[in-house]
C-alpha cells in the first residue's frame, strides 16, 4: 500500500480550477517529485496535502487514513512533516531550539509539567534535545546549534528548516521547493542530503523547479500542468514523454 | 412603555448614536489609509468639546466651534507627524501600543489643562427647555443639530472620497498602499491627512453633542470602545455601515436603561462587541474578505 495516496483531488479558487482530479501515490521509502511549469498547481496541491487548505473534492490518505481538511497540527502529529518555500524559522530562538520545536510531537510534557519541571519532564527534554542534535548533525550544522537561527546564512537556514522537519522522525517529509535560492554547490549538497534522508527510510515528496535536482534524487516524477496530472513515471521515462517535453519546451499549451 | 416614552428613548439613542457613528467613521478613515486602529480616536471628540467650551468664553459660538475643529485637526496631524510617520513597517502590536500611549497623553494633557470638571457648550438654538413636540416626545433642537451634522459629515466625506482628486488618491491608498506609492501618490501625506480628517470630524461631533452629553477629560476611552464596536458592527472600512450601527448601538443603549442599572450601560456595548467579534468579525454590513485581512 502506498504511504501517501491522493485520490481525485480538486480545488477551485474563484474562476480558477487550481487542481483538477489529481491522483497519485507515494510508495514507502521512495522520493517522489512533483514538477510543472509556473501556475501548474504545485503549491496548491502541496497545501492540500499538508492541511493548509481543504480540498473541494477528493481524498488524501496517509497510511490509509483520510487527512484532507484536517488542520496542519493534526496532520503533523500523524507523521507528516514539511518545510516552507519561503524559510519560516522561529526568530529569537537558537538553531537547536528551532529543531526542538520540530520534535514537538515526539514529546508529551504539558503546561503543568513545564511549569514544575518534573523529573520526567527534564528526562523528556534531554531526549528531545538529543533528537534535535542528531537532526542538526544530519544536515551538518551541529556546530551551529547555539546560534540564533535567523542570523545564519540562507543555505544554513534551509538546513535548519530541514533538520526541524526531520526531528520528529516523520513518516513522510514534504519539501516545498527546497532548492529555491540555493547556488549550484548548495543544490548539490541538498541532493546528497535528500539521498541520506531517503537512506534512513524517510519517504519524501518534493515539489521543485530545479530539474537537475529532481532527476538526480527522485524515484518517481509526477508532472502537473494547469491543475492536471499529465505524467507520472520514473524520471527517465518522464524526460522522454513527448507531452512533458512539449510543455517544458513551451511549444504548445497543454 | 408608552409610545411617547419609547420615542423619547429613541431620540436619546439617536443623539448618542451620532457620536458613536462619527467616531466609528473616524476609525474607518484611518484604518482605510493605514491599516491602523487609532485608539486615540475618542480623545479627538473630547478635545473638540473641551476646546470649543474654552474658546466660547472669548469668541461667539460659531467661531468657537470652528476654532476647536481647526485646532483638533492640527492635533490629529501632529499626532501622525510625531508618532506614526517615521515608523517603517511597524508591527500591529507596536502600533496599538503607540496609539494607546497617545490617547493617555491627550487625556492627561486635558486633565492638567481643564481639570476634572464637566464642560459643555450652550445649546446652539434655544436652551435646555426648548423642545419640539414630535409624536408626543419632546425633542431638543440640539438633537436635530446633531443628526444634521452627522448627515452632513457623511455626505461631505462621500463627496470628498469620490469626487475630489485627493479623496480618490486616499481610496487608492486604501486599496493598495504600495501600488499607490509606486504611482507617485505621496502616501505619507495622505496618511497625515487621514489623521487630520478623522480628528476634525471627531471634534465637530464633540462640539455638536456637547450641550446634551457634556464633556470631561476622560470620556475618550469609552467613546473609542463604542466607536470601535460601531466600526466593526458596520463592517470595518464601511462608512454607511458605521452610521447605521452607530444609531443601532445608541438606541439599544437608550432602551437598556429601562431594564438595566445605569452603571451597566457600557457593558451592553461591550457585550455587543464581543458577540460580534465571536460570531461575525466582518460585521453586519461588511465583507468577509476585508475582515479576514484585517484580522491577520
Amino acid at each position, binding site marked *: 500500500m502506498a504511504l501517501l495516496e491522493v485520490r481525485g483531488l480538486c480545488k477551485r479558487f474563484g474562476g480558477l480550477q487550481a487542481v483538477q482530479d489529481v491522483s497519485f501515490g507515494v510508495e514507502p521509502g521512495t522520493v517522489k517529485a512533483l514538477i510543472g511549469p509556473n501556475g501548474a498547481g504545485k503549491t496548491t496541491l502541496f497545501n492540500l496535502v499538508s492541511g493548509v487548505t481543504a480540498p473541494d473534492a477528493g481524498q488524501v490518505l496517509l497510511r490509509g487514513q483520510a487527512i484532507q481538511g484536517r488542520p*496542519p*497540527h493534526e496532520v*503533523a*502529529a500523524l507523521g507528516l512533516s514539511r518545510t*516552507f518555500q*519561503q*524559510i*519560516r*524559522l*522561529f*526568530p*529569537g530562538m537558537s538553531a537547536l*531550539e528551532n529543531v*526542538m*520545536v520540530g520534535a*514537538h*510531537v515526539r*514529546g508529551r510534557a504539558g*503546561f503543568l*509539567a*513545564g*511549569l514544575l*519541571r518534573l523529573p520526567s*519532564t*527534564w528526562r523528556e527534554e534531554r531526549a*528531545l534535545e538529543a533528537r534535535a542534535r542528531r537532526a542538526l548533525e544530519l544536515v551538518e550544522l551541529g556546530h551551529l546549534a547555539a546560534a540564533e537561527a535567523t*542570523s*545564519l546564512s540562507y543555505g544554513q*537556514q534551509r538546513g535548519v528548516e530541514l533538520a*526541524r522537519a526531520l526531528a520528529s522522525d516523520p513518516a513522510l517529509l514534504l519539501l516545498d521547493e527546497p532548492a529555491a535560492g540555493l547556488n549550484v554547490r548548495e543544490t548539490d549538497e541538498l541532493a546528497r542530503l535528500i539521498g541520506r534522508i531517503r537512506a534512513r527510510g524517510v519517504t519524501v515528496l518534493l515539489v521543485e523547479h530545479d530539474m537537475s535536482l529532481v532527476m538526480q534524487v527522485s524515484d518517481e516524477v509526477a508532472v502537473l500542468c494547469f491543475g492536471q496530472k499529465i505524467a507520472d513515471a520514473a524520471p527517465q521515462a518522464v524526460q522522454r514523454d513527448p507531452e512533458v517535453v512539449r510543455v517544458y519546451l513551451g511549444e504548445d499549451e497543454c | 412603555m408608552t409610545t411617547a416614552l419609547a420615542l423619547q428613548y429613541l431620540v436619546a439613542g439617536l443623539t448618542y448614536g451620532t457620536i458613536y457613528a462619527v467616531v466609528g467613521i473616524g476609525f474607518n478613515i484611518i484604518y482605510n489609509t493605514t491599516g491602523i*486602529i487609532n485608539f486615540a480616536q475618542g480623545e479627538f471628540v473630547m478635545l473638540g468639546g473641551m476646546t470649543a467650551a474654552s474658546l466660547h468664553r472669548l469668541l461667539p459660538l460659531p467661531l468657537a466651534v470652528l476654532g476647536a475643529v481647526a485646532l483638533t485637526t492640527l492635533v490629529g496631524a501632529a499626532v501622525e507627524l510625531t508618532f506614526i510617520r517615521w*515608523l517603517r513597517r511597524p*508591527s*500591529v*502590536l*507596536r502600533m*496599538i*501600543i*503607540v496609539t*494607546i*500611549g*497617545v490617547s*493617555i*497623553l491627550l487625556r*492627561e*494633557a486635558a486633565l492638567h489643562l481643564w481639570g476634572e470638571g464637566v464642560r459643555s457648550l450652550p445649546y446652539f438654538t434655544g436652551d435646555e427647555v426648548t423642545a419640539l413636540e414630535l409624536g408626543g416626545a419632546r425633542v431638543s433642537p440640539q438633537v436635530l443639530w446633531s443628526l444634521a451634522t452627522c448627515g452632513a459629515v457623511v455626505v461631505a466625506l462621500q463627496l470628498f472620497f469620490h469626487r475630489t482628486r485627493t479623496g480618490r488618491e486616499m481610496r487608492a491608498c486604501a486599496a493598495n498602499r504600495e501600488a499607490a506609492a509606486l504611482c507617485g501618490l505621496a502616501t505619507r501625506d495622505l496618511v497625515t491627512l487621514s489623521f487630520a480628517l478623522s480628528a476634525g470630524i471627531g471634534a465637530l461631533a464633540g462640539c455638536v453633542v456637547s450641550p446634551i452629553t457634556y464633556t470631561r477629560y476622560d470620556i475618550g*476611552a*469609552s467613546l473609542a*470602545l463604542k466607536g470601535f464596536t460601531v466600526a*466593526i458592527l458596520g463592517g470595518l472600512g464601511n462608512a454607511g455601515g458605521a452610521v447605521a450601527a452607530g444609531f443601532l448601538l445608541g438606541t439599544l443603549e437608550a432602551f437598556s436603561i429601562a431594564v438595566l442599572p445605569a*452603571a451597566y450601560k*457600557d*457593558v451592553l456595548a*461591550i457585550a455587543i462587541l*464581543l458577540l460580534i*467579534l*465571536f460570531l461575525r*468579525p466582518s460585521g453586519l454590513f461588511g465583507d468577509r474578505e476585508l475582515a479576514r485581512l*484585517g*484580522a491577520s
Partner: protein
Amino acid sequence: MPRARHLQLALLAAAVVAVQLGADAAGKPFWLTQLTMAAYGGLVVIGLCLFMGYAGQISLGHAGFFAIGGYTAAALTTADLTPRRGAALVELAARVHLLTLRPDLYGGELLTVRPWPAALAAVALAALVAALLGVPVLRLKGHYLAMATLGFGTVVSAVVVGTEGLGAADGLSGVPPFELLPGLAVAGGAEARAQNYYLAWGLVGLGMLLLLNLVHSREGRALRAIHGAEDAAGAMGIDAPRAKLRAFVLSAAFAAVGGVLMTHYTGGIGPSEASVMRSVRYVALVAVGGMGSLWGTLLTGTVLQFLSLRGVFGSFDDAVFGATLILVMLFAPEGLLRLELPAGLRAALARRRPPPAEG
C-alpha cells in the same frame, strides 16, 4: 541552562536582602511596604509578560483579572454569614472548615470564609473567566484581540463600580490577614513589615522559577514558536489556539494571585485597581522591560511600580506611563533592557543576516 536560571534566582535573592538591609540602614523601613506592594504588582507583570512577550499576544484587560482575584478574596473573607446560619450551604461550608469566626471592629463576631479557600476560589474564578473569554477571543488577532480584552477590562471595571455589594466607588475594606502557613501571614502593619517583604519577594521568586521553567520547556518553546511564525508552528504539530489559551489562563491566574495577596496585604481593594488605565500600565511595564524578557520585565516593573507608589510622579503618574509606553515603542521596541543578548553580539549577528525572503 537550568544552572543559569538558578544563578539568576540567587542574584534576585541577594538583591532582595541587600535592598532590605539598605532600607534599614538608610532609616527608611517604610520603603519595604511599597516594595512589598510592588512585588505583588510584579506577579501580574511577569504573568502578562508570558502572554505578551513569549506568546506574542496582547491583553488590555489584566487589571480585570487582578480585580476578580482581589474582589473575590475580599468579598468572601469579609461578608458576614452569621445571618445566613442554618442555610444548607453555609452549614456544609462550616462543617468542612471553610468558614471561620473572627472578631470585627466593634467587638462583635463575623462568620466568614477562611482566606485559603477564598484565595483558591478567587484564582479559580479568574482562570475560569479567562478560559471562557479566551476560547472565542484568542482566535482573533491584533486590533481585535486588543479591543476585546479592553472591552472585558471595561466590563469588570463598570461592574465593580456599579455593584453595591462590592462597595461601589469605595471598594471593600476590612480584609483580614492571610495566614499562608502557620505563623506566616500576608498582613499590613509595621511589626510584620520585613517578614511580609521577604514573603512577597519569595513568592515572586517562586513565580519567576515557574515561568522560567515554562519558557524553557516544550510548551514554552511552542509559545515562542507561535509568536515567531504561527503557520510554521502549526506545521510542527503545535495546536496554536490551545497553547495561547493556556498561556492566557495562566497569566490571568498570576494576575489574580497578585490581586488576592495585594488585597490581604493592604486590607482592601478599590475600583481603581480594576480600571482600564491600570491594565494599560501593566502593558507599559511589560513593554519597558523588553517584551520577551521575564527578568527585564520584573526589574523595570517593580522599580516603576515602587516609584509610582512612592508618589514620585505626582499627578503625572498616568502621563509618565503613557509617555514611557510611546517612547519605548518608538525607540526601543525590544525593551530598555535586553538582558538576554549583549548589544555587541547582537550587532555582530545582525551583520550576517541573510536577505529577507520575499513575499
